[in-house]
């Protein structure tokens, strides 16, 4: 029983980390209607942005996370304007494929500048708490907290600001939104900035637990896409739910399967969910 609880806790903590880039991915999907695979490299760029802020400039964790968000957001918008914007009319598939090429380019820009050496943040590693035979990491809780802060901020932004409402309008019905005079280009830019910023923020959270190198984002991307798909592409609460399904599913699989098969289990879970709900857990309603 304790074992099961422990696996659940591990899975939930892993899930909160996956949730942030998954939300970023799904936000862009909601507005622009194509899977932007460049989130992988922008998560890496965010992790490096946070690294520079934290190690080179000695900023504390919250400020470094903000730096990660802004770096990835700005890089995301810039690369989107340069590489993808002209392809918007060519259809979602061409865009998705171009975003794969873009992610290769961006990953290598990072490699060109920083090399392949592993880097770590300048933060202490703390011992876990032990509560009733369970092991909980203060830092994992802190990271999960940071993830929740990001999600809450996004929710407030979408629910209460004018820009946020515009984004939702475009996501729900682009045609109607343009009739009402909402500027689709600006909304798209804001969506990309927010989405890629979240990817970068999530990339740094992942880097905190692992290490920072040009493949930091790439390594987790399959799980991130899986989370967004399970939840229903374009649905933000869906991405969160999907992240928990994938995170917990991968941990629970250890009960019955070899750890080497963890990734596979994640995908079987997706297949199971999608067989019953082909549009994901929460469908495609954006928010």
């Amino acid at each position, binding site marked *: 029983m304790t074992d099961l609880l*422990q696996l659940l806790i*591990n899975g939930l*903590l892993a899930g909160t980390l996956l949730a942030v880039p998954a939300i970023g991915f799904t936000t862009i999907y909601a507005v622009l209607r194509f899977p932007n695979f460049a989130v992988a490299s922008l998560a890496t760029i965010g992790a490096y942005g946070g690294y520079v802020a934290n190690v080179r400039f000695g900023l504390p964790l919250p400020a470094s996370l903000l730096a990660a968000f802004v770096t990835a957001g700005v890089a995301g918008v810039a690369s989107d304007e340069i590489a993808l914007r002209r392809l918007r009319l060519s259809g979602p598939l061409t865009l998705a494929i171009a975003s794969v090429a873009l992610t290769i380019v961006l990953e290598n820009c990072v490699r060109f500048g920083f090399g392949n050496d592993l880097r770590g943040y300048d933060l202490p590693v703390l011992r876990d708490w032990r509560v009733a035979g369970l092991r909980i*990491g203060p830092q994992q809780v802190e990271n999960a907290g940071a993830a929740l802060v990001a999600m809450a901020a996004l929710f407030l932004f979408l629910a209460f600001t004018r820009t946020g409402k515009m984004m939702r309008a475009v996501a729900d019905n682009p045609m109607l939104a343009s009739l009402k005079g909402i500027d689709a280009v600006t909304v798209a830019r804001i969506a990309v900035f927010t989405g890629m910023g979240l990817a970068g923020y999530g990339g740094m959270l992942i880097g905190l637990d692992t290490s920072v*190198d040009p493949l930091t984002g790439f390594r987790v991307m399959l799980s991130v896409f899986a989370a967004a798909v399970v939840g229903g592409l374009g649905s933000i609460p869906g991405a969160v739910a999907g992240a928990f399904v994938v995170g917990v599913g991968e941990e629970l699989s250890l009960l019955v399967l070899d*750890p080497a098969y963890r990734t596979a289990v994640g995908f079987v879970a997706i297949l199971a969910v999608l067989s019953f709900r082909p549009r994901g857990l929460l469908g495609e309603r954006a928010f």
Partner: protein
Amino acid sequence: MTIIPTRRQAMLAALAMPFLGRVAQGAAAEPILIGTLTPQTGAGGSFGPGMVKVAKAVVDDINAAGGVLGRKIELVSADDETNPDAGVRAARKLIDVNKVDAIAGTWASAVTMAVAPLCWDNKVMLFTVSGADSITKLPHQGYIIRTQPNTYLQSGRIAKYIVGDKATKVFGLSAQTPFAVDSYNRLAEVLKAGNVEPLGDIVYDAAKTSFRSEIDQALKTKPDALFLNSYTPDITVLLRELFRAGYEGKRYTFGYAATPKLLENVPADVVEGLVSFAPSPDLGSPAYARVKRILGAEPDPYAAQIHDHISLIALSIAKAGASGGVAIHDFVRAVGDAGGTKVTSAIDGLKLLADGKAVNFEGASGPCKFTPLGDIEDCKFRFDVAEKGKYRLLSIS
């Protein structure tokens, strides 16, 4: 610095030519081409750049001292992308376009296995740092030389050390690699013989970002020592999580996983007491010191090994008196001649060879004597312990 008279070497080369399969086409001024095939991108990317840096520096030193047989060495570097599919195409370019005599530095076992048949088909020597035992068992006709001790040798030695270190119950955590299972089996065998209990082994997927549950599973068996058969990215995660989990026992791993760079990037208390293990030359080896100087940092084992690859290639060509893969193939074992003068750099060795003397090369990774299969016969290992974020040498044995 004395410049070796190039004309004499050219004459020597000319004299030796009729006895050798492949003739160096007479033109003494043509450079000797050597390829490096290292991972610059992909999972092995943290090692490739340092390896090429060392290879370049060794080549520059040799050229500055007059080259080999009066000819300069030219290094051609290719990226294998840590991927056998891309590695084969990169090797094709090195072999078919650049016409290299030898390829040095292949790192991932799958890349080495994929590239090896191209090398022996085209009579190009392959020097590798890959660990999988199956590599030297390929029908390579002597065209593979491996400076990395094989799994059997490594795991046996590390197990002996663990026995001597008074561990009683050992658990293994291994990344999914070609040698994960063999490694653990050999370890368990030697541990049992030393009355240490092997508790079991978990093979994990190295691409994951968290191994909390795997660690819980391992610690449940109450080990007092862990054998971490990992690579750098995953061991970073493992060490942090072991620390968080409050694990206080011993941890042993390979020097290529817990590199000196890793110690710089992880808080010191996380790695405190970690014992790492790498093939090594004698204490105070000038070759090792040279690699350290080139890198400006403590070398990882692969950087040390490629120093030896390039040196061996240069020395074999000098000993043969001709370039070409066949010459290197035939003479690579003759430059580790036990009766010869011990040398630790290619330049010293080239001078002696030019004077017609025998040499016994001992490089930055240790003595370079190879079995007929191409494995190193035996080597010493160094054991370092991490203390306050730096390695301290425990012993070389």
